[in-house]
């Protein structure tokens, strides 16, 4: 009788342990599932928020930072229709921005190169004028140089001093008068500081600075 009771108790214990264990296991899975769902929901919300911010230009991120963010969201592989749609739009937008940025960089590089070339050309012309062996030779160089400018009246600004953020200029002159000044004085005491161009690539403002 005693051993029977013991057997029954053992069986009951085994049943309790089994049932209890199963219940506990189910609860952990449920928690993990809920956590995963919450994480997914949070990621979707974050992705929608970030992608909308990128699409509506409501972020201070650089293009590179925006591209990195889109890549991260894409890597999450959220398989959410709204996120997928926003991702397509954002990728197209960033591709346009990337193309525009590269075009701007190309243009800036071309302008820098052009300015460098122009700088050299102008310096050569200025030196040609001051070293001309005759008035007619100097006049020929002046006429050739004027061809680089929008008109003979293009302003020439000469910085005489730069102090505490203030530029002090000499009385502004015109390119025609400046080139004739070089011819008369036979000295070049300025160097090129800045060149501005019109849409036809002709110089429409020249800024020089005393050496």
């Amino acid at each position: 009788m005693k051993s029977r009771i013991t057997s029954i108790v053992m069986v009951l214990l085994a049943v309790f342990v089994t049932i209890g264990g199963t219940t506990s296991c189910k609860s952990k899975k449920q928690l993990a599932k809920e956590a995963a769902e919450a994480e997914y929901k949070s990621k979707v919300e974050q992705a929608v928020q970030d992608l909308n911010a990128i699409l509506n230009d409501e972020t201070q991120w650089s293009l590179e930072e925006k591209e990195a963010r889109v890549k991260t969201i894409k890597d999450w592989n959220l398989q959410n229709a709204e996120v997928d749609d926003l991702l397509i739009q954002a990728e197209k937008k960033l591709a346009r921005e990337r193309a525009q940025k590269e075009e701007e960089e190309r243009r800036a590089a071309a302008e820098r190169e052009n300015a460098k070339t122009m700088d050299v050309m102008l310096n050569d012309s200025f030196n040609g004028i001051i070293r001309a062996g005759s008035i007619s030779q100097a006049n020929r160089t002046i006429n050739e140089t004027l061809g680089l400018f929008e008109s003979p009246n293009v302003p020439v600004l000469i910085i005489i001093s730069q102090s505490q953020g203030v530029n002090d200029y000499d009385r502004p002159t015109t390119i025609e008068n400046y080139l004739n000044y070089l011819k008369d004085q036979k000295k070049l005491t300025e160097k090129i500081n800045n060149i501005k161009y019109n849409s036809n690539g002709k110089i429409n403002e020249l800024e020089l600075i005393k050496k």
Partner: protein
Amino acid sequence: MKKIIATLIIALCVAGTAMAQDELSFERKQAIDSLALEKVRDLSKYVKIVGSKDTPFSEANRVIDRAEELFMSDAEIGVSSVNSNKITYYRVRKYFEHLMRLNYDRVEIEWYNIEYVSDLQRQPDGTYVGVITIFQTFRGYDKEGNLVYKDTTKKDITVYVRRKETQIGGRTIGFWDVLLGDMRVKETTDR
């Protein structure tokens, strides 16, 4: 009472700022000193070009225009001779036209010892005024190449430098406008 003190403090601050704006830094003052001296050196070149018998008439006239722009509108230039005590003052254009027509076959004009005798000083109206002295040697030759006249003249040129502004390319440019005043003969010798 508090209002009076506050008003006084504000007035002092405003006056202080105005004075600070009036005071040019050493570098900026040096830049305008050099600019004024350079204008006088430029003038010396113009005198030489116009005086030269090799300069074509059209070039000389263009240079006279440039030279005239260096001066104040009513400025006069003194002309002297070792043969007379008389000093004649001409308006700038008249002076250069006179120089262009001098009755020599060849003329040599040199300016040297160009320097300040009185530094640029700020006037109450904001204009900086100074005096620059120059020495000029003049030599006139006849067609045989003989030196027929020579003198050395010391001249004082009053220089006015004013801060001005102009609009260029849609922005305001502050510049120093250097203008030369009368050029007075101080001394003429036959050396």
